[in-house]
């Protein structure tokens, strides 16, 4: 059953173009130039109940704008979206009680008070009954391992602990749809891992629908069955994580371990040499040529060990992003930005 339905959703902002220099700043007082930025340009997307979707894209690709549209913070320029049957930007309380947005860089807890007080506030705002509140709170803080920190002022918590409290606050009203905007930003590896683990088990248990943006591929690989790549405000890929590698990377990495006596002089003829560390070497080979290259290598050298791997996900994603850039640059330059004068 579709929970989120987006059709031809578009959002453009008008930003003030400030020119360099004092004189230009002065003239900016009287006459300003604006530029239209098309942050989201016609997105179609359907997310079913219980899906865990990752939203990938470089900075400024339109990820956060889309999440803001879906949580009703901003109105679209055109297009429609429905989340659980509600139009988000109508901001009905009935909708607002059914979803949550967590932004890794924004704080919604009261800085000087213990997190527990902020939770009580949420209990009231979201009208959570007392017994359910206690249960949910205990369950969340236990699994995030922060139940002993509930009475400490939020300002004295570490970033990781604070993020866990933010998550707890956002989940207290048991939202059916959850938007996570870089929930692990700035956290150390252990805290990141803890939050991943928590999100995974929470989602499996409650079957909530989650949309997540993150720059950490580890988050995405650990959590999401489905990946949507967005670049320049448009969807570039929608499918499984493994599918990205299949679709966008025509290469494999072959790691070889040679016998002690072998020389490494002529490896270039097989493909691009990535690394030579005798007795090991790594080559980048076009996928179609893998069988023939492998046969030739095994034939001509004495090999102790061999492994064929996909290129690292980060590299593939970076490739996908830059492909998008080239495409956008060649197709859309004239349309993409339009200078308008507003006096």
């Amino acid at each position, binding site marked *: 059953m579709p929970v989120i339905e987006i059709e031809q959703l578009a959002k453009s*902002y*008008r930003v003030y173009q400030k020119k360099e220099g004092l004189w230009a700043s002065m003239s900016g007082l009287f006459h300003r130039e604006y530029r239209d930025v098309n942050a989201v340009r016609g997105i179609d997307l359907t997310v079913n109940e219980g899906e865990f979707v990752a939203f990938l894209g470089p900075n400024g690709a339109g990820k956060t*704008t889309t999440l*803001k549209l879906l*949580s*009703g*913070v*901003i*109105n679209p320029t055109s297009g429609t979206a429905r989340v659980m049957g509600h139009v988000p*930007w109508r*901001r009905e*309380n009935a909708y*607002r*009680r059914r979803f*949550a*947005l967590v932004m890794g860089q*924004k704080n*919604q807890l*009261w800085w*000087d*008070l213990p997190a527990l*007080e*902020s939770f*009580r*506030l*949420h*209990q*009231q*705002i*979201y*009208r959570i009954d007392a017994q359910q509140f206690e249960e949910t709170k205990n369950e969340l803080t236990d699994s995030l391992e922060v139940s002993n920190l509930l009475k400490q*002022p939020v300002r004295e918590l570490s970033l990781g602990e604070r993020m866990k409290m933010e998550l707890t606050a956002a989940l207290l009203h048991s939202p059916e749809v959850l938007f996570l905007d870089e929930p692990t930003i700035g956290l150390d590896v252990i805290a990141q891992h803890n939050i991943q683990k928590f999100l995974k088990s929470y989602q499996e248990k409650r079957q909530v629908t989650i949309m997540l943006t993150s720059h950490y591929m580890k988050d995405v690989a650990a959590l999401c069955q489905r990946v949507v790549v967005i670049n320049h405000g448009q969807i570039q890929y929608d499918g499984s994580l493994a599918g990205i590698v299949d679709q966008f990377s025509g290469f494999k990495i072959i790691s070889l371990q040679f016998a002690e006596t072998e020389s490494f002089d002529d490896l270039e003829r097989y493909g691009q040499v990535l690394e030579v560390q005798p007795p090991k070497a790594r080559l980048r080979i076009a996928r179609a040529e893998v069988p023939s290259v492998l046969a030739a290598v095994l034939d001509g050298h004495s090999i102790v060990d061999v492994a064929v791997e996909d290129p690292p996900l980060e590299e593939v994603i970076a490739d996908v992003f830059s492909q998008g850039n080239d495409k956008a640059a060649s197709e859309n330059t004239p349309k993409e930005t339009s200078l308008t004068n507003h006096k």
Partner: protein
Amino acid sequence: MYARALTWWIILRIALEERLVYRGDFMLGTLMRFLPIITQIFLWWAVFETVGGGSVADADIAGYSYNDMVAYYLLTMISRAFSSMPGLASGIALQIRNGEIKKFLIQPVDLIGFLLLNRIAHKLVYYTIAILPFAFVFYLCRNFFASGWPDALTLVAFIASLIMGFLIGYFLEVSIGLIGFWFLEVSSLLFVYMLFSFFLSGHMFPLDILPAPWNTLVDILPLKYLAYFPSAIFLGKVTGWDLVNGLAIQAAWLIFFIAFSRVMFARGVKRYSGFGG
């Protein structure tokens, strides 16, 4: 209904707790407010001495004796303790600028109501701490009040006027803060407002000593209900139908600013969600 009342109570309680975190700052700030009293008393002394040609007791400025003037000044301090809203408008503008305002678009909570409860908590803590020094100062200055305590009815009108003054001050400053949706920075605007408010609310001097056409101007403006009007009620300067009329106009201004801030908020959010975010 019950759920809503409970929500308000919890917000109020949490805001109270938050205010109490800064008790040191609060106490110091409260005590420092009393310092200007001394300078004002001496200032008016000097003014009346000059006007009376050396005799303060004989001097009279537009119907105010020296004692009346100091009594008036002390009463405006109480009015201002209700109607001034330190940090409210600038706080709202800051929230708009740094995006914290989103919280009120995402969560099912109303910004204006939420901040009102915060402000009530703020004031309650302030009065609790300030009541002793206030009482002490008024005890020391009791001789300035020539006619003693007013009758009960006047006191009720005084308190009603103070409470409405608090609410007018709140909704007016909220409206100024919400201008942040259009201009982002409101501190200069706020400064201009403060300056006008200082003179035209009656904080600096009683408004009824102003000559025409200024007296008509301050009569039309809502600012006088922030300081002058409650003090004038206490001093028995507004009585009978004038009092009823005055309170009715004050209530009308209050309703106006409630509605105005609502409209500003609705339009501001519309603009914010259209252009920014």
